């Protein structure tokens, strides 16, 4: 089954704790009959050992749940794909079952949309209140209004940070967390041309040379052209050491170096690093050819190819970083969900506040009319107060 290769399960190694080694007291207690019983002094060590067993079992449980979830999601995905592509009758049996729960889930999420909507008025309530304050000032003191603008601007600037979390934001987070489908594709590296090109130090040196040429004019061209001829030769010889006979190379290099003018020799200094590396490998090959050194097994071309090795290193870093990001996003999603539930509670507190205020106003009105509030009003006031207390307790707890 080709699908097995893409299976995203991690295939954890589930081993239960070896209680013989790690929990000796527990093992001893097991071996005894019930008549012997457990002594009070053994309680402490027993407790620690039970805690070890318990934390290992609960970790196993969590991992199993995560794996089951991955398996279900993967099967859903496969089921949908199959459903779309093939649409055969006998296959419709299994996939629609996966398809329907998925649709229900989406609808459930959409239902949350209007929920946090009323949460928004909180910030909007602040601003109209401030504006009311402004309006009452208006007839009294016209020139003062521009100065009082600062609070408005402050609240406006702070608002995006304090605003309620909407379900859309939670959904965006969840989408960000969706399984990385095509990551494997991104990590493939195809080597089109294994022969490395010119080393960047050489190329830059050449470019600098050309610039100087432009600056100094055509007078220096003769010397430069010689230097230019030298550079490509140097480049080839230095970077690609995979020649069969090292000796002719070295002699060729020497002749090249002898015939060079002062400027290329000056230019040779930046190349000292690749130069020594290739020199070492050429000496090694020479010795191997002479039979003085045993030829080591050549490792894969990765180690010879610096660029590929670097790429692999960066890929590993990237993988670690994206794994770290995923855990952070998971945490963020969990915190966001908790915050959403707390927001709903706060919303209920606000509504309870309004009810309490209504009851208060009724009682005040009754007092103003110099009559005692009716039992009904008193009961309602107490009821709203108690409701508000209970919601507040939920919020705190």
């Amino acid at each position, binding site marked *: 089954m080709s699908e097995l290769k893409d299976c995203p399960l991690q295939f954890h190694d589930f081993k*239960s704790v070896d209680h013989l080694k790690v929990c000796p007291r527990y093992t001893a207690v097991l071996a005894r009959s019930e008549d012997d019983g457990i002594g*009070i002094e053994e309680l402490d060590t027993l407790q620690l050992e*039970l805690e070890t*067993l*318990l*934390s290992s079992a609960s970790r196993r449980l*969590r991992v*199993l749940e995560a794996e*089951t979830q991955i398996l279900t999601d993967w099967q859903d995905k496969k089921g949908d794909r199959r459903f779309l592509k093939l649409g055969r009758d006998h296959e419709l049996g299994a996939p629609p079952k996966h398809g329907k729960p998925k649709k229900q889930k989406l609808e459930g999420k959409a239902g949350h949309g209007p929920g946090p909507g009323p949460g928004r008025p909180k910030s909007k309530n602040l601003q109209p209140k401030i504006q009311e304050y402004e309006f009452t000032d208006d007839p009294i003191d016209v020139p003062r209004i521009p100065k009082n603008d600062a609070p408005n601007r402050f609240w406006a600037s702070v608002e995006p940070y304090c605003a309620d979390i909407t379900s859309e934001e939670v959904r965006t987070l969840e989408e960000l967390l969706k399984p990385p489908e095509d990551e494997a594709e991104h990590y493939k590296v195809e080597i089109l041309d294994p022969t490395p090109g010119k080393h960047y130090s050489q190329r830059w040196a050449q470019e600098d040379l050309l610039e100087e040429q432009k600056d100094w004019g055509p007078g220096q061209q003769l010397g430069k052209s010689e230097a230019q001829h030298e550079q490509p030769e140097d480049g080839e010889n230095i970077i690609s050491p995979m020649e069969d006979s090292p000796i002719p190379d070295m002699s060729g290099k020497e002749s090249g170096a002898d015939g060079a003018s002062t400027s290329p020799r000056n230019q040779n200094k930046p190349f000292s690093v690749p130069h020594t590396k290739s020199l070492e490998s050429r000496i090694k090959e020479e010795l191997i050819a002479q039979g003085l050194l045993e030829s080591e097994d050549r490792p894969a071309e990765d180690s010879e190819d610096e660029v590929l090795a670097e790429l692999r290193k960066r890929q590993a870093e990237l993988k670690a970083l994206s794994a770290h990001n995923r855990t952070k996003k998971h945490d963020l999603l969990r915190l966001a969900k908790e915050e959403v539930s707390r927001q709903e509670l706060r919303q209920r507190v606000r509504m309870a506040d309004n009810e309490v205020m209504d009851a208060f106003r009724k009682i005040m009105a009754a007092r103003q009319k110099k009559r005692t509030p009716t039992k009904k009003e008193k009961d309602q006031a107490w009821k709203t107060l108690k409701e508000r207390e209970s919601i507040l307790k939920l919020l705190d707890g």
Partner: protein
Amino acid sequence: MALVSADSCIAELLTELHQLIKQTQEERLQSEHNLVNVQKTHEQMQTENKMRGLYTTAKADAEAECNLLQKARDKIAEIKSLLEERRIVAKIPGLYNDSKPPRKTMRRGVLMTLLQRSAMTLPLWIRKPGDKPPPLCGAIPASGDYVARPGDKVAAPVKAVDGDDQGILAEVVSYSHATNKYEVDDIDEEGKERHTLSQNRVIPLPQWKANPETDVEALFQKEQLVLALYPQTICFYCALIHVPPQRPQDDYSVLSEDTFYADSYPPPLNVAQRYVVAYL
């Protein structure tokens, strides 16, 4: 008479604990069997449905094992609380004619051993899926209206002999709702004067350990300022966290200000999770 019945109660509970432990082991054997099956199927995965079924069984087994272990742990806690109650009741003089009068002061070594044991056997908070650590677990502070019960240990800002410390380890005797004040006793000087402190100055010590493998947010992090009990004393000092615990049984490694080392920083000290609280 009450003492005798408490004893028989404890004996009963111990028998029940033994039974629970035996049941737990049976459950673990069974889940081990299933886990072996899971391993085998990992290697030759024929259909995903079979895999899913096995995972579900393994999940159910793990849940059952967790439940039994949790019950056994709760049983131990019950036994311990009974023992503790007996100790507190025995402290009230004159209640039992045949019991010895309570010791006024304990030897220092005995006290230190007791403190160490109490730190070691602080129950570990096990996270269930969808749960989060409660107040008084590790670094999580108590909720606003929390009232410590008699017998709970707290950090009380009472000046001890040398003036550098920030508080002492004390045990709550009673709480008065009317005045919002606690009466606390020094941990090793029973019989000396009781201190009366207002509620917001007394810091309750954690009642659960946080598991570093699952609940990192319930632990103090490096460089956080805390109040920690200086080892082998009963005084709390300001300290900076050096290394938080890596495994559930580990201690915090803290750096404390210590006037004894005038020139350099004193070496880090190991303090158990039980005796590290936030510095307010």
